[in-house]
């Protein structure tokens, strides 16, 4: 059972990783939590669901989820963040919370509160490896996550766009003096963040073959914990912390009791905040200001 639970934990952790990265990109650039990300994740899931049930391929579903969530994220940036950029940090955060509730309401009105379920044919086969059984969709979730994290790391660390993102994260005013458009980079960060959330939504929707308008809330909170534990300053932090939290969660359920699951996850997050606020891979304490 242990090996099987590890597989379950890594799959769950893969989704946490993508969503944590989504939070981290906006947090890294702007220092605010975009609380609508959890609902972008949910909307991405519904879009992917629609594409899959139309019998289009998984890559098309992932692309649709990413594009749709990125577009909504751009709207949030233009309406919910940009006009409030100079207000205290809590103001744009509250604005994104408002968007979160609106998106949840829109989803409930469009698709209802009952879970949408994929037909059985989409549940996918399973591969037996000795005592462990791995679903094909579990492998896809893990594989797509690794690819997206690698692509994101490449963009941030090796491209001019990434350099601009890091420059704005470091000092917006200095970046502007160097010719980097802060507004354009902020919009890009929101859209990249939305695209990652949308991808995570599609993956979780097809993996569990069910989705509801409320799926983002619990997973979104866990992703914030993963972001804190991994460190907002390092992309690879989320790749480490996601599976770590996923495994901790399933092992707690399997061996400790489901009642203490959230205690373990959020207790770990509080311990990190107290004793290593820069996160597991966040470098030294002085690294706090350098994000993305």
């Amino acid at each position, binding site marked *: 059972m242990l090996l099987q639970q590890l597989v379950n934990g890594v799959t769950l952790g893969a989704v946490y990783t993508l969503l944590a990265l989504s939070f981290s990109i906006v947090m890294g650039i702007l220092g605010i939590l975009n609380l609508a990300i959890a609902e972008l994740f949910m909307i991405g899931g519904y879009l992917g669901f629609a594409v899959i049930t139309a019998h289009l391929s998984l890559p098309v579903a992932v692309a649709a989820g990413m594009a749709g969530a990125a577009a909504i994220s751009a709207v949030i940036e233009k309406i919910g963040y940009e006009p409030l950029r100079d207000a205290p940090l809590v103001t744009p955060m509250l604005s994104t919370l408002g968007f979160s509730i609106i998106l949840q309401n829109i989803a409930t009105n469009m698709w209802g*509160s009952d879970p949408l379920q994929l037909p059985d044919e989409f549940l996918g086969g399973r591969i037996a490896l000795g005592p462990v059984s791995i679903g094909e969709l579990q492998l896809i979730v893990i594989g797509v996550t690794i690819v997206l994290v690698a692509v994101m790391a490449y963009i941030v660390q090796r491209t001019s766009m990434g350099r601009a993102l890091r420059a704005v994260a470091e000092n917006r005013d200095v970046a502007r003096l160097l010719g980097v458009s802060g507004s354009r980079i902020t919009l890009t960060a929101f859209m990249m963040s939305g695209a990652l959330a949308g991808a995570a939504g599609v993956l979780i929707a097809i993996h569990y073959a069910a989705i509801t308008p409320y799926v983002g809330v619990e997973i979104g909170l866990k992703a914030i914990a993963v972001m804190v534990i991994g460190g907002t300053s390092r992309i690879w932090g989320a790749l480490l912390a996601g599976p770590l939290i996923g495994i901790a969660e399933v092992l707690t359920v399997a061996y400790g009791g489901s009642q203490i699951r959230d205690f373990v996850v959020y207790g770990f997050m509080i311990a990190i905040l107290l004793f290593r606020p820069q996160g597991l891979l966040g470098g030294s304490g002085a690294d706090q200001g350098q994000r993305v």
Partner: protein
Amino acid sequence: MNSPRNKWSVLLAAAILQIAVAGSVQAQTVAIGAIVPSSGPFAEWGRSNTVTLKMLEQEVNKAGGINGAKLKVIILDDATKPAQAASSLRKLAGDEKVIAVAGPLTSSAAEVTFPVANEMKVVSMSQASSKPGVAKANRPWAFRNTIDESILAKSTVPYYKKTFDIKTVAIIFDAKDATAATVGTKIMPAMMKDNGIAIVNETDPLSFNTGDLDVSAQVTKMKSLNPDGVVLSADYSQAVTVLREMKRQGFIKPVVGATQLISSAILKAAPELPIVAPATFYASMTGGLAAPFVAELQPMLRKESGLPAEIEPSMYDANIYEIVSMYVEAAKKSGVTGKPEDLEADRTKVRDYLVKLDNFKGLGGPISFNDDGDAIKAFYVLQGQNGAWTTKVQGCSSVPGHPAC
């Protein structure tokens, strides 16, 4: 004396007198309140409840209203939040001057709202709460048009055991749902023991939280314990997640649960997996008033935006329809006036009528209330498989021979 002027004076005086007499007997409208979750995780139930109540309001007014007055059903959304349900009741009773309230839906909301109903001296009757003792703790104004889950389980579990030769079960429940948690931690464990069924995770209860999508760890653990069956205590929308995961992991075992499982949606989650649960009403019921109710309501539900195209009337639609119908009957037969100055007396008349209610014609059979405020009515143990519910056992929530049975 017979001049035209005098004739008009007489006619005018007669008209004024008639209006004055009518005014002293009956207001123009009689208001009944309803608290349903039109938003939040159980929005489907609340929205279909709303359509049901609008249909009933039309039916009553078309048939002449309540002693000549029009029925007005005022519906508020509690989003399944107990505090919002309690404040909705305050608004309905305090501002809208309703004679009685249908709802709230969940036990969690009822536990918070029923004490407010007692404080404001207005009847509040839940359409879905089935956690033991919720109305009993809030007499005399709290009622439930449901049957206590511990009574239903006494018929459900023996059928489940006998049909599937169950010797061992694993129990999993939604820890954030008041009814589900009570059924999962108290009612079902006791019932299993009474029926000689061992619980493989007795010392290690498995739970999840409302809204969780990942229950892979819990299902993997259940599978490793290899029980003959699974007790799944959750609202159907949450239970779907567990059933999908059981299917995904190839863990196909008969499932037993409470009334919360009854829905058409749950049958799609894993059609080959047998599900046993009790109900007082289900959409494919035949006979009595159920079939005409479904025939009238179903097209209206399917036209409503925000509800699934294939939706069927639920047990909670039937329950809330019965609740407001009972209030209407009480108002008609006990002389409720609907006038502001008679409000307190009207509310007391409704309550007293319900206490003595004898064989009200419900959709699934006659209804009365016991001393705890819970309904005495017929129920059915259903088995869901391959997309349909079928009746396997018929019972009653009172001793045999009671008129409601």
